[in-house]
């Protein structure tokens, strides 16, 4: 066998190391979404709790809202759920996208943990999420009254992320809605 063959593992490893190096400091929170400052993609999907109702992208028009991609299969969703309950109780509209889930399990999840969503879009096939560029739940977007996405956050949304990424973009009259942390921050 030629000697160069034995170098394959080294080459493969350094390829992997380069990938890891490029990912260091990778913000798992802000993502360079192609959709920032673009409208929410078009869709026509049913409501989870009432399959007679169908929504389109127009539900984002005329109000500030959060779009939260979740699923009962997603461990981190359980973690961030209490914070969404708090946001909802402060009067913030949260549109849920129930992503690749099973209706019964999703309903049980809401029954167990409470329902913070004003509307829940069912995206079983994952087509809408694909258009959004979702690569895993949870992901949360801030959408302005023109239906344009301003912020994308992948992973758990907590008080710190809310204060740093979402709150500064909200209009003044909503500045008062500083929602306290669910868990006490580390000293």
């Amino acid at each position: 066998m030629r000697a160069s063959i034995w170098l394959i593992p080294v080459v493969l490893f350094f390829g992997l190391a380069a990938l890891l190096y490029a990912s260091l400091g990778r913000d798992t929170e802000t993502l360079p979404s192609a959709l920032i400052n673009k409208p929410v993609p078009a869709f026509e999907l049913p409501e989870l709790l009432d399959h007679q109702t169908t929504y389109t992208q127009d539900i984002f028009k005329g109000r500030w809202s959060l779009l939260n991609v979740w699923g009962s299969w997603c461990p981190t969703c359980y973690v961030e759920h209490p914070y969404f309950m708090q946001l909802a109780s402060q009067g913030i509209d949260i549109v849920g996208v129930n992503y690749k889930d099973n209706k019964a399990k999703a309903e049980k999840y809401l029954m167990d943990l409470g329902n913070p969503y004003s509307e829940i879009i069912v995206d079983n096939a994952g087509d809408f999420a694909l258009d959004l560029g979702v690569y895993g739940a949870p992901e949360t977007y801030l959408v302005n009254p023109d239906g344009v996405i301003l912020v994308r956050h992948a992973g758990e949304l907590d008080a710190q992320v809310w204060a740093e990424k979402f709150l500064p973009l909200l209009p003044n009259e909503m500045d008062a809605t500083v929602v306290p942390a669910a868990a006490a921050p580390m000293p």
Partner: protein
Amino acid sequence: MIVEIGHFAVWLALGLAVLQSFAPLLGTWKQQQSWINLARPLAKVQFLLVSLSLVALGWAFYNNDFSVTYVANHSNSDLPWGYRLSAIWGGHEGSLLLWIWMLAAWGAAVALLSRTVPASMVAKVLAVMGMIAVGFLSFMLFTSNPFARMLPWFPIDGADLNPLLQDPGLVVHPPMLYMGYVGFSVAFAFAVAGLISGRLDPAWARWARPWTTVAWAFLTVGIALGSWWAYYELGWGGWWFWDPVENASFMPWLSGTALLHSLAVTEKRNLFRAWTVLLAILTFSLSLLGTFLVRSGVLTSVHAFANDPARGTFILIFLAVVAGGSLLLFAMRAPLLQNKAGFKLLSRETFLLGNNLLLLTATFVVLMGTLFPLIGDAMDLRISISGPYFNAFFVPLTLMLMAILVPGVLANWKRHRWAALKAPLIWATVGGVITGFLASLWPEPTSFVGTLAMIMVMYVVIGHLYDWYKKATAFRQGIWRGSRRLQRSYYGMILAHCGLALVVAGITMVTHHEIERDVRMVPGDTVSVGGFDFTFEDVKPRKGPNYDAMRGTFLVEKNGRKVTYMYPEKRNYRVAQQVMTQVALRPGLIFDLYVALGEELDMPGAWAVRVYYKPGVRWLWLGALIMAIGGLLAAMDKRYRKPMPIEKQEQVA
């Protein structure tokens, strides 16, 4: 003061580790026996120093010394003392100290127990382990020091340990896992030492094998404990989530399993040598990669540590030095490792090669699934990866692995006659199909894949029983005396393989036959699950040491006769202000009953309740435990303690 002694001990350990990593190596090169002889005492003293620092940190936790930043962030004066001690590894810095302590412990064990290995080999192995220790000690001291103080203004009380970690399962899970992770550093050190000295023969494999097996056994137990903990502590009844952190421990396990089998071929047949070395490097590199993924913040996970790119950079550079350096050394030496002997297509070697390919495919599948968010980022792809992706690969891979397992055990080394293999294989297959099909009918008929899995389980068990019977009676002394003449490593193998069968049986049972009911209940309501009637009696407040709980009482009856009471809780941890679900479990060998209290619903007194019936779920962890016991038994085989004999082919492996 005691904390400072611990801190100082770590610095001293770093100094000794530097000495340990070059003096013995230089000694073997310059033929200086006195330098070679330094290796063993250095490893032992290093272990004592790191032990001292671990005790010092434990002392700070025990005495609630909140001037130590790490203690203040991970403990609280209300925390029971047992959890105060386990909080040592409840965060990044302390768990790193635990990791280093285990590395030192493995080093000391090599120094103490490798009496049959030549001193020059031990010197090289310990030097390589010294280098790894230098890397980890400086990582801890320069980026994540658990002994740092918050002076002069320190908090009066601590922020408390994450409630998820306040659990007996979590007290033992990280130590077991790290014992496995770190244990593979010994296999790695042997591989590098073998590459340096150019000595990679059956004797080398025999020295490295018991260490690898023990590390593998610890990792097996560690992973099983993690799964068990997730099952009862996270409160939604699953036992594996394909979370990046779980995958980080599963990858070295898969490649470590491949390494075990490849080492067997190298020891017995002097084959697959380059392959074995490559696997040893890969397995330890995957352990380091796991560390990187968990501690660098490149992936989001429920139980990842605090994100810090500086730490990530350090581990990445370390990984590049360890894996890159050893792979380069491998590339230089591997051309010398051409196999001399050959083997026929129908032989144990072929089946073990198949085993290795399947396990490596599985490792690759997990690696891709775990790194996909990073790759997707780099290529601007948008695909999300979750359970279905992994299951799509793992079900067929496991079934194929089990299919070649039986002929692999039955076949001889070097070559086997098909005629001799045919009869037992047919027997195992026919027996497996009949008993597996019958087993799949209980408690009710299952899908095609479930039936196939049960057939494979029974096929593996019957195949091993047959092989044992054949080998025990081969001495012609009756089965009792014959069975006592078989080696420990043989029984270890049988146990480990049957443990795997039990794990697969458990996964099949729980996946296909579990019953999950999520209901709204008010006191007095009864729900029927899996033939049991659960009556919700009441919910009462209860005060724990550092939490307030609402505790539900459920009467469980079968056919009107009382079985047990179950008490699920909803706990609110006072300091962390975190609500946790404490599941009530009635564990059983055949099935578990599982009750979890959800939220109190809008109507007063009405609660969301989850009632699960989980058949076979214990087999999963029991099977893993049996695998680990098998591994330990194999590592205790007499031949590892004998001074290296002249090569002798053994009939029974």
